[in-house]
């Protein structure tokens, strides 16, 4: 099992956004999280990725709890690659510096492999500040950072936002290859066609009242 989520409850601003969510992601599996605006997709992914502390429940990645003790937290995060919806790391960083930082933090290589670089066109982003990139370029740079390693679990929030058709195709192939290599991915998107092409098992979130 690559990722187990048990009875996850996340509250923001006094509202319960995620209420008792359960999930198991096995090796080779891609899971699509779908739902209308405001259904809590991004909040759920933030709790899985260790950015937003849940009110209750557990998230376990590669045998380590994301919200456990210090060592477990570190182990869980080393097995994780995350791209948030906004894809907004500090804007003064160059693409290459973002990859180096993410690689150094996870203890893996600090530059994308030639295959990853070719698929996402990362060479042209290496010396460009993130604040000068378009949304699509920024997302490609963040995808490059998330896929370094590669991680056991990939958590992607609206990953095709801003991508042109060629790069969206490349993204699908990367997610499929990631799963084929025995890893797993959780992808939140409105684009059901993308999830279908990636062979994802979909879970729908209901809109909160």
């Amino acid at each position: 099992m690559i990722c187990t989520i048990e009875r996850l409850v996340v509250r923001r601003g006094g509202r319960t956004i995620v209420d008792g969510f359960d999930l198991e992601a096995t090796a080779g599996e891609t899971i699509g999280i779908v739902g209308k605006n405001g259904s809590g997709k991004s909040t759920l992914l933030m709790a899985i990725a260790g950015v937003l502390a849940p009110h209750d429940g557990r998230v376990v990645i590669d045998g380590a709890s994301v919200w456990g003790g210090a060592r477990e937290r570190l182990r869980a995060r080393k097995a994780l690659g995350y791209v948030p919806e906004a894809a907004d790391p500090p804007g003064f960083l160059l693409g290459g510096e973002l990859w180096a930082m993410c690689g150094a933090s996870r203890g893996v290589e600090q530059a994308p492999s030639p295959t990853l670089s070719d698929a996402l066109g990362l060479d042209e982003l290496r010396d460009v500040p993130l604040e000068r990139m378009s949304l699509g370029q920024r997302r490609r740079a963040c995808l490059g950072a998330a896929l370094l390693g590669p991680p056991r679990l990939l958590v992607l929030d609206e990953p095709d936002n801003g991508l042109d058709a060629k790069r969206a195709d490349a993204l699908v192939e990367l997610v499929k290859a990631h799963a084929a290599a025995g890893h797993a991915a959780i992808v939140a998107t409105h684009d059901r066609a993308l999830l279908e092409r990636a062979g994802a098992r979909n879970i729908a979130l209901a809109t909160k009242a």
Partner: protein
Amino acid sequence: MADAGPRSSSVTRVWIRAVLAPADRRAAPVLIGTGIVGIVVFGPTGMQPHDLTQLAMLSPVVGLVLVATWTLLFLPVARVIVRGDAARYLRSLPSPRWPAFALGALAMTVLQLPWLLLWLVGAGAIGALVVALVTGLVVGLALVRGRPPRVGRLRWRGPLAALFGVYVRALRRRAFDALLRGVGLAVLAGLAGGLFARNNDLEPREASVLATAVIAVVLTPGWSGILLPLAETHRDSAWLAATHGISESARVGVLAAVSVAIYVATSALAAVAAFAIVPGAGAWLVAVPLGIAVGTGLAVTRGLVRAQRSAAMAARAVIGVIVGSAIVVVALGVFGATGVLAVLLAGVLAVGTA
């Protein structure tokens, strides 16, 4: 043609808000700092402007220090006006450009008022020529754009080294102008502190205490300008750190290290300038400002951490820096040189509970 007037004036108003307002904000700390130094230097029992301008024209070293300090102080302001990057899109509009040029020239004059007054009152027509030449130099430097950064052969040794590298890059790329201004203000602060101490004819220990308190006051706007981009980086890198297992305490530790480095570097520069005025203060002028710098850098880190959790981050960060300087003045005023230990203790406690 009938619409040209109103359209032109509205474009000019946008240019003022996009270019002159930020330039004015950058100039404020410079005007405050030079105002304090001016009061000390040209007070009732002090020098006359003519004495200083004559000294600057006769002694190349004094002249160079004076011109370099003003260039460092005013260059960040001039960059905003001369480049006008924030209003670049206005160039695509069919409106005349002369109002922007005229207002830019006026702003370059008004915002250099302390420098202009010094030279006009001190050296008359020759002074006006000096100001014109130095302004030409500043405009030339303001137009120079550095090479775009490149990654090169980058390899960080671990998460903390990476985070430290990110913060250093934030200072280089987001706070470069503030760093330039901070260097200029540090020289001014040291000169003001040294003059205060010398004018009061104090013993070395007391002289260093007074000089350090003055340095803390004059450098406050400089520190705010440098630390604000650091607080923004701390906030913007939070999710990256969270997903990569960099703990909150490690983040605070790196932020504290960078803050202390900024306080120590600027205080050391100010101490050197003060030492030039009161060489008799000797070792006290090393120990007191640097001890205070370490303590304040740690204490202000807590303010920056709190600020990044607030919606009014910029205001909170600036207030944090002002409170830090106020603590320094009170501690030195109440405890004298022993106040260094009080500030160090306060700093350690503050960062430990951040």
